[in-house]
């Protein structure tokens, strides 16, 4: 479907082949990131020009095969079958050719012509693997282009190969994999039964092969289309040969073996590679934990030594400066407008702006670890502990990031491959105490507990984490049937990171955050400002205060006044606001004043219950917005809100009643 002016290309590949680097090279910043319709899987597309032709590229999700086992695989194969791109470029990793070609074996029977890009030739060479692209091309019958995407090598050849294939496809004669002899008759029998009922655009022989493999989606599709007696016969055949999936996979690998026999040279036995050497430490049950602890410590150090000062600078110059300018500019405007802009809008936007340094540091950290190949090792080392909570080892790092800020932590759950694991982790991130919550903790505990303050503070952190672990087990059992997805994880070879790839990743993630969470924060800030100003202009008699008073009965169970309830509500914007709101509500004028007043109006038991609720309470609106964005589900976002409300208030009440009984 090309008219000489514009063509469509799909980019496929298994994970860890450098597909995104290739995509970035081809499309640069023209790429547009979104979601596949109705799914939470990321969709990237971009465009480049060559010889007057506009080439539109879609980056398909990285998949090991094209079964129906995961949403990513279904998306990838549906795109090729339904959209019929002009070319499918499969990126493979030169150091795992044999396994990577499995995807090629699945792609060749599909309607679009294939080009194989052999990437990471340098990494292969480092590990003693040699591959001959020309020999592979002769064997496969499809264009094979060697590349080192991280060094910009091979990209022109790839662009040219795409162009050549589209201009003149007559030379394209792929040697497609054929089913093993012992199952050939079976496949033909299936084919005869279903041909004629297969809906276009699905290729009939591909459908028969998928049926033989026991593909759930295709089976469902054909069950609906075949007349009952025909389906019964098909089903009987499939039930009798349930192990055919192994035969089909085995057959593909036999084909791969023949294709690579001449083209591939492996390292001699006994040669120890860099990856093996590094993994002796990184995956060791004891040393691996140490390595991980050091890396995590480094991140935290970076966040506090670089990130916090930057936040302070932004706060002073950008936010406060902006407020100053606005106040002056609106000098003649009515005071409510000035307050709306300065306190509401700029206050809200300011929160978003101060997120920037922390976000960038975290995204850079995650991008770097993933690119280098270490992320998988971290997941491996932590899996022993994570699986006790029904989580995957890879859940650890996003949860850990939650200590800094819940927002990048939720976004970081993308490294988790299974949807179930990702959802469960997203639900648990808000229970990790972030720095904002710790700040409130650090402010209030000394006022009530004197020398015991650090003990109380750490106990509360411990409480949060215990609740996290217990909630994990509970939610897993109730919502997911208690089991977790099988632990199968590739450990890719280590290689030098590509800064361009990481840079683009940081840019995209930060942009996504601002667009989604940024708007939500702004809107909620303004709404809260409105509620606190109307109808009288004084916060004590505003709607917000009215809501606080409504909640007073609940508050009394916790030993909290309506002012404290209002503070809880405003902490929805940002946890730090709790302190500021209390200051305003009690007319305390600043933290020092508040430090004096609070001990007079609260008992230690009440302070304790307030802190418990604060720690476990609904997370800040930025986190909620991100949870919604990453889970793509109203149901789950609502669930976590209700769950946290129940847990925080429930525990708060219990602790208050017990504590005040004791004291």
């Amino acid at each position, binding site marked *: 479907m090309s008219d000489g002016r514009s063509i469509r290309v799909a980019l496929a590949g298994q994970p860890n082949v450098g597909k995104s680097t290739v995509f970035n090279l081809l499309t640069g910043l023209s790429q547009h990131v979104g979601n596949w319709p109705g799914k939470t899987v990321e969709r990237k597309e971009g465009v480049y020009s060559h010889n007057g032709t506009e080439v539109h590229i879609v980056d398909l999700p990285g998949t*090991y*095969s094209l*079964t129906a*086992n995961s949403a990513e695989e279904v998306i990838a194969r549906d795109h090729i079958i339904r959209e019929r791109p002009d070319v499918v470029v499969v990126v493979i990793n030169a*150091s*795992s*050719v*044999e*396994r990577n070609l*499995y995807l090629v074996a699945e792609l060749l029977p599909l309607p679009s012509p294939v080009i194989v890009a052999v990437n990471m030739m340098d990494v292969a060479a480092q590990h003693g*693997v040699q591959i001959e692209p020309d020999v592979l091309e002769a064997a496969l019958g499809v264009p094979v282009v060697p590349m080192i995407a991280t060094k910009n090598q091979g990209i022109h050849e790839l662009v040219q190969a795409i162009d050549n294939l589209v201009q003149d496809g007559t030379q394209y004669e792929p040697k497609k994999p054929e089913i093993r002899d012992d199952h050939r008759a079976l496949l033909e029998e299936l084919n005869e039964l279903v041909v004629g009922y297969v809906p276009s655009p699905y290729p009939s022989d591909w459908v028969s092969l998928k049926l033989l*493999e*026991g593909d759930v989606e295709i089976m469902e599709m054909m069950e609906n289309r075949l007349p009952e007696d025909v389906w019964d016969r098909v089903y009987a055949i499939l039930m009798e040969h*349930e192990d055919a*999936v*192994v035969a089909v*996979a*085995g057959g593909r*690998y036999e084909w791969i073996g023949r294709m690579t026999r001449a083209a591939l040279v*492996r390292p001699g036995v006994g040669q120890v590679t860099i*990856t*093996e050497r590094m*993994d002796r430490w990184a*995956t060791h*049950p004891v040393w691996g934990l140490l390595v991980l602890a050091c890396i995590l410590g480094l991140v935290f150090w970076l966040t506090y030594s670089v990130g916090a000062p930057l936040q302070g600078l932004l706060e002073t110059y950008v936010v406060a400066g902006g407020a100053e300018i606005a106040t002056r500019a609106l000098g003649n405007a009515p005071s409510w407008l000035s307050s709306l802009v300065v306190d509401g809008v700029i206050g809200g936007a300011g929160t978003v702006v101060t997120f920037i340094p922390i976000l960038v540091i975290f995204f850079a950290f995650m991008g770097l670890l993933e690119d280098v190949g270490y992320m*998988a090792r971290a*997941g*491996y080392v932590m*899996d*022993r502990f994570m*699986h006790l909570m029904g989580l995957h*080892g890879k859940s650890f790092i996003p949860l850990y990031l939650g200590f800094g800020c819940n927002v990048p932590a939720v976004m970081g759950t993308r490294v988790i491959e299974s949807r179930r694991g990702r959802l469960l982790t997203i639900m648990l991130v808000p229970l990790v105490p972030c720095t904002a919550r710790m700040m409130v903790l650090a402010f209030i505990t000394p006022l009530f507990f004197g020398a015991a303050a650090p003990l109380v503070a750490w106990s509360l952190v411990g409480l949060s984490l215990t609740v996290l672990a217990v909630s994990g087990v509970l939610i897993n059992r109730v919502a997911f049937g208690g089991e977790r997805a*099988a*632990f*199968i*994880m*590739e*450990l890719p070879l280590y290689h030098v990171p590509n800064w361009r790839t990481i840079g683009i990743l940081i840019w995209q993630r930060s942009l996504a955050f601002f667009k989604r969470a940024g708007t939500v924060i702004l809107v909620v800030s303004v709404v809260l400002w409105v509620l606190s100003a109307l109808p009288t202009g004084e916060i004590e008699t505003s709607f917000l205060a009215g809501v606080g008073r409504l909640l007073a009965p609940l508050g009394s169970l916790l030993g909290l006044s309506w002012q404290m309830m209002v503070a809880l509500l405003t902490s929805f914007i940002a946890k730090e606001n709790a302190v500021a709101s209390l200051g305003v509500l009690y007319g305390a004028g600043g933290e020092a004043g508040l430090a004096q007043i609070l001990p007079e109006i609260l008992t230690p038991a009440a302070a304790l219950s307030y802190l418990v609720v604060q720690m476990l309470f609904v997370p800040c609106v930025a986190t909620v917005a991100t949870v919604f964005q990453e889970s793509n589900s109203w149901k789950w976002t609502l669930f976590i809100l209700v769950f946290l409300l129940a847990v925080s208030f429930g525990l708060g009440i219990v602790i208050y009643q017990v504590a005040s009984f004791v004291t």
Partner: protein
Amino acid sequence: MRRVRRRGVRGDRDLPLAPGRLSELNAGEQAIIEGCDAGHMLVSRLSALGFTPDAPVTMVQNFGYGPVIVSVRDTRIALGRGEAAKIRVRRTSGGR
């Protein structure tokens, strides 16, 4: 070093090609895959990754607890202990 449990076979401990489970291999030992005793989805995933009958596999790391690391078709793959126990193998090297 750990001894492989052989089902129903007593006596001679030096049987070279004794069958067993992937989770029983020690680091450095090699084997050939015979099959997977698992549900359809797991079998399908493992097969796609290269765990097919007659494929050679090497145990890279196995500390007796926690997930193992194996090398199959030039790739290092970490497997949960439960998953590794479902894969039947035939040892081709290594001793007791």
